[in-house]
Each structure stands twice: as structure tokens, then as C-alpha cells.
């Protein structure tokens, strides 16, 4: 299979699987269909790119499919019976902690001292939890395609940054995550559903933050690009700005777009593209 065919199938396969699962979910009126669709699409894309990882995985990024499936449990809690806020946040926090620990484990084992480990773990867990809380609050007020659109845009930008930063592999994994958000954006545009959007967030954020961490720690994603991409989801907070909601929504889209372009721009400037 040529490289072009591999890239094309790497985009088509996760998008097709995600669309199929979401279509079945919508037909069955299941709000968790968004989360399951994104997770299933990503798992298909990951397996296509990487093959079946050994169990337990030996490379940090090979934990991402497992973590994505773990993220789906939050959506199940949201949609099964009376929602337990405490249970939801505990499962979500466990997903965040597991993502940070598994993605940084090689750094902890080979490079970081105890103090550095404590600093990084605290920062990453708090940071990722805050991003989740911020985006979740926005999603509860915006059941439509806004949140998936912005997260999809940023994930696509991350894929471009990864490709410019020495890792085609991580670019393809981020790309697989990005294309699964396309059918989600369509579904939430056609059938706005706050529970679906909130339920899918842990899955998207696990993939987004996980591939971003892998790119920063194990490839050559620059500090500038990584910082902008880490902070960019916070642009959704701007949806609360302005007397009319539309002003804030427009501002959030513009800022997120600017963040994505800036991150890609920095990656272009500091690029170390593969040159075998």
C-alpha cells in the first residue's frame, strides 16, 4: 500500500467507523453514541496506523485506545439513570489521572527526579481537569456543534503540528482523532444534545491531551506550540462574553482559530520535518 493510500485510509476508516456507530446510536436515541462513535473511530484508526499493540502496551501512545474507551464510561454514567455528579467527576478524574500517568510514565522512569515528577504530574492533572471542567461548562450551555467544531479544529491543528515536528505517526493518530469529530459536529448540528456533547468530552480530551503530551515529551513539538494548543480549548469560556450570546460564540471561534493558526505557525518556524 502506497503512502498516499495509507494516509487516505487512515482518514477514511476512523471517520467511517465513527459515522456508522453514531448513526446507529442516533437511530437508537442514545446520547452516549457520540462518545462511543469517537472512541470506536479512533480505535479503528489507531489499529490501522499502529497495528494491534501488545498488552499491556509498551509505548505510551499505545495506551490511547484503552484510555478513549475508559472515557466512554463518563458518557454511560451521564445517560444511565439519575446522573450522579460525584460519580461522574470521579470517573472523569480517574480518566485524567490515568491519561497523565500512562503518557508520562517513560519520562518518570528514565528522566524525571521525584521533585520534577511531582511538579509535572500535579500541573498536568490540574491543567487537564481544568480544561475539562471549562469545556464541560460551555457544553452544558451549547448543545449544538460549537464545542465539537472548536475541538475538532484544534485536534486537526495538533495533527499538522505533529507532522511538522518529526512524527508522522503521532500526526496520523491525531488526524484519526480529528476526523472522528467531523460526524459528531454534523450530528450535534442536526440534533443538538447537551448530554451527547458533554459525554463525548472525556474521550476527545483524552485523545487531544494524550497525543499533545506524546508529541511534546517524545517528539519535537515545541514549547510554544504545545502551550498554545494546551490553552486553546479555554477559548470556549469566551462564549459567555457579550450581552448577546452570539458575540461570545463568535469571539470563541475566532480566538480558537487564532490559537490553532499560531500553533501551526510556530511549528512551521521551528519545524524539524523528517528527512530520511
Amino acid at each position: 500500500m502506497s503512502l498516499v493510500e495509507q494516509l487516505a485510509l487512515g482518514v477514511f476508516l476512523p471517520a467511517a467507523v465513527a459515522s456508522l456507530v453514531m448513526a446507529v446510536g442516533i437511530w437508537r436515541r442514545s446520547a452516549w453514541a457520540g462518545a462511543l462513535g469517537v472512541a470506536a473511530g479512533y480505535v479503528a484508526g489507531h489499529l490501522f496506523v499502529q497495528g494491534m499493540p501488545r498488552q499491556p502496551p509498551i509505548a505510551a501512545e499505545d495506551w490511547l485506545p484503552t484510555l478513549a474507551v475508559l472515557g466512554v464510561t463518563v458518557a454511560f454514567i451521564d445517560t444511565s439513570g439519575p446522573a450522579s455528579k460525584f460519580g461522574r467527576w470521579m470517573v472523569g478524574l480517574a480518566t485524567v489521572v490515568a491519561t497523565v500517568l500512562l503518557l508520562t510514565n517513560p519520562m518518570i522512569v528514565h528522566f524525571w527526579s521525584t521533585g520534577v515528577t511531582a511538579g509535572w504530574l500535579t500541573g498536568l492533572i490540574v491543567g487537564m481537569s481544568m480544561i475539562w471542567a471549562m469545556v464541560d461548562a460551555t457544553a452544558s450551555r451549547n448543545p449544538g456543534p460549537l464545542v465539537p467544531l472548536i475541538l475538532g479544529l484544534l485536534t486537526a491543528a495538533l495533527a499538522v503540528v505533529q507532522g511538522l515536528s518529526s512524527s508522522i505517526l503521532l500526526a496520523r493518530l491525531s488526524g484519526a482523532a480529528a476526523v472522528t469529530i467531523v460526524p459528531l459536529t454534523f450530528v450535534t448540528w442536526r440534533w443538538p444534545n447537551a448530554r451527547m456533547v458533554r459525554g463525548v468530552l472525556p474521550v476527545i480530551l483524552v485523545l487531544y491531551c494524550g497525543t499533545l503530551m506524546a508529541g511534546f515529551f517524545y517528539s519535537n513539538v515545541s514549547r510554544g506550540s504545545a502551550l498554545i494548543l494546551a490553552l486553546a480549548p479555554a477559548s470556549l469560556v469566551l462564549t459567555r462574553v457579550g450581552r448577546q450570546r452570539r458575540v461570545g460564540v463568535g469571539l470563541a471561534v475566532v480566538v480558537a482559530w487564532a490559537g490553532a493558526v499560531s500553533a501551526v505557525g510556530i511549528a512551521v518556524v521551528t519545524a524539524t520535518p523528517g528527512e530520511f
Partner: protein
Amino acid sequence: MSYHRALVLATTLASAVAFGIAAPAAETYTVDPVHSWVVYRVKHMDVASSFGLFKDVSGSFTVDEAAPENSTFAFSVKVDSIDSANPKRDEHLKSPDFFNAKQFPTISFKSTKVVKSPNGGYDVVGVLSMHGVEKPAAIKIAEIPRIKGPLGGHVAGFDTELKIKRSDFGMGSSVPGIGDEVTLMMGIEGKAK
């Protein structure tokens, strides 16, 4: 020659024959990183070979000519020391696309069985650890010359090579554009402790 001197000479010769003067006792050598080389060769686009080396080599080996089964070979390279004569390519090689150097910082070989080869030299069977995967590997060492070092002690070394399939180690990215078969050519020199 006095009777006493003749007796000493005869005893010495008898001891030499009994204990094998041609086979020195087992001696352990520490790999000399300045004079040891691990060079790789891989096909690019199936037209020509691409070469590179790992600059940080370490390890030790013990040679027991009298009892080869007691010989051991253990050496490793730091993946981060890879040098392909192109810094951008080095960065790419260290990324998760290939060696994933941060997650798997060393490549190592450790012998598990050493036998005297029927053609002379040694057949060494061991385990090659790379990219988080361990696989059995075998190398042939034609000879291990051993000389007195200029600063005392002994210096010994050997040349060998090992062919592997990188996809066996979970490094199948860009096959076949970049060949699957990689030849590791090693020139290892050690100093006796």
C-alpha cells in the same frame, strides 16, 4: 645448566602443557567507547544504503578460551547518540516514528550461550532488546585478538554483525520506503580491568 635450573624449567614446561599456555585464563574487558563502533546500514527506497552510527557504546565481555561456555558478551548503545550525518534526520529517527528514543533510551545485547565455532571463533546466542521488544539474536565472532595494552593490561576486541528486521521490534514505520532489514556492524574493543 645446573640440575636445579633444569628441574625448574621442566616443571614450568609441564605446568604449561597441563594448564594450556595458549589459552589464557578468563579475562573480562570493559568496552572502550572511544574505540568501539556500532554502525547501521539500511536500504533507502530500495536503491542505495543509508548509514549511521551510535556514538555512545558501553558494556563488557569476558573471554575464556579454555572454557568458551563461560564467556559472556553484554553491550549497549544509547539511542540518543545516533548520528546519521543529518541533524534533522537524527531528530526523526529519535521520534516515535522510529526508535522512540525517550521511551526506549537503550539498545542492548546480552549473550545467553557461547560456544566455540567448528570453524574457529565463537557462536554467540543472546537477547537483543530494542524499542521495548526482546528477541533472540545470534552473532558470529571470527576471532578475538588479545594484545598487551600500551599502558599495561590487555586489550582485546572483535568485529561482528547482526541482521535484524526492524518490524520484528515494532518499528515498521515507512517500510518498504526505508528497508525492513537493518544490518548492525560492530567493532568492539575492550580493556581488561
